[in-house]
């Protein structure tokens, strides 16, 4: 079983739709969860960061963590064509070490 899994997509939605992006993971030691946005041939851009379980909201973005199910989500409200990108989840444990483990990314296309 892969450590962090994401549906690669592409996920195509109309402008204004609510988008749900998800990751599952197998390592119960993961405590820190991040979502990055990556445009083609660019570096990952940090969108959201959460610790342990719960919800976090920032503008149009909401991150949810369900540690009991080993499942995290990113919701994008009122999606815009400029949101079209690949969304990467990343996570790390609280153990000694700073390594982020990434999912493979979900490609999102928001059509005008």
């Amino acid at each position, binding site marked *: 079983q892969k450590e962090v899994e994401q549906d690669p997509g592409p996920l195509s939605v109309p402008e204004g739709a609510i988008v749900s992006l998800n990751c599952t993971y197998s390592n119960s030691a993961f405590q820190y969860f991040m979502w990055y946005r990556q445009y083609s041939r660019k570096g990952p851009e*940090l969108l959201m960061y959460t610790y342990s379980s719960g919800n976090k909201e920032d503008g149009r973005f909401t991150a949810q963590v369900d540690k009991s199910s080993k499942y995290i989500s990113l919701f994008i409200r009122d999606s815009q064509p400029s949101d079209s990108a690949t969304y990467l989840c990343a996570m790390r444990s609280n153990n000694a070490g700073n390594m*982020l483990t990434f999912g*493979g990314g979900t490609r999102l296309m928001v059509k005008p």
Partner: protein
Amino acid sequence: EPEVTQTPSHQVTQMGQEVILRCVPISNHLYFYWYRQILGQKVEFLVSFYNNEISEKSEIFDDQFSVERPDGSNFTLKIRSTKLEDSAMYFCASGPQRTEAFFGQGTRLTVV
């Protein structure tokens, strides 16, 4: 807004040559990282650096690789005796603490 800067944006090198990838992390950040992304694959951790020493490294980061922070602002990744399979995007990242990592735009390394 402060950002991580990487040079060059694209490096082409012959197999067997040595390359140095350069990074200027965000000022006042304490944690520094190198990741790589082979085309179409996941972002993979290479090494983290804190307090002027390597704090963690992956299996990928073998004797072919080394990192340095030669002065107060630069952070470099040296790859000796490059191989075709070293072709990838190399990302530098930095963070104010262990929890977050802010990525640069990457250096695309092509080994021919």
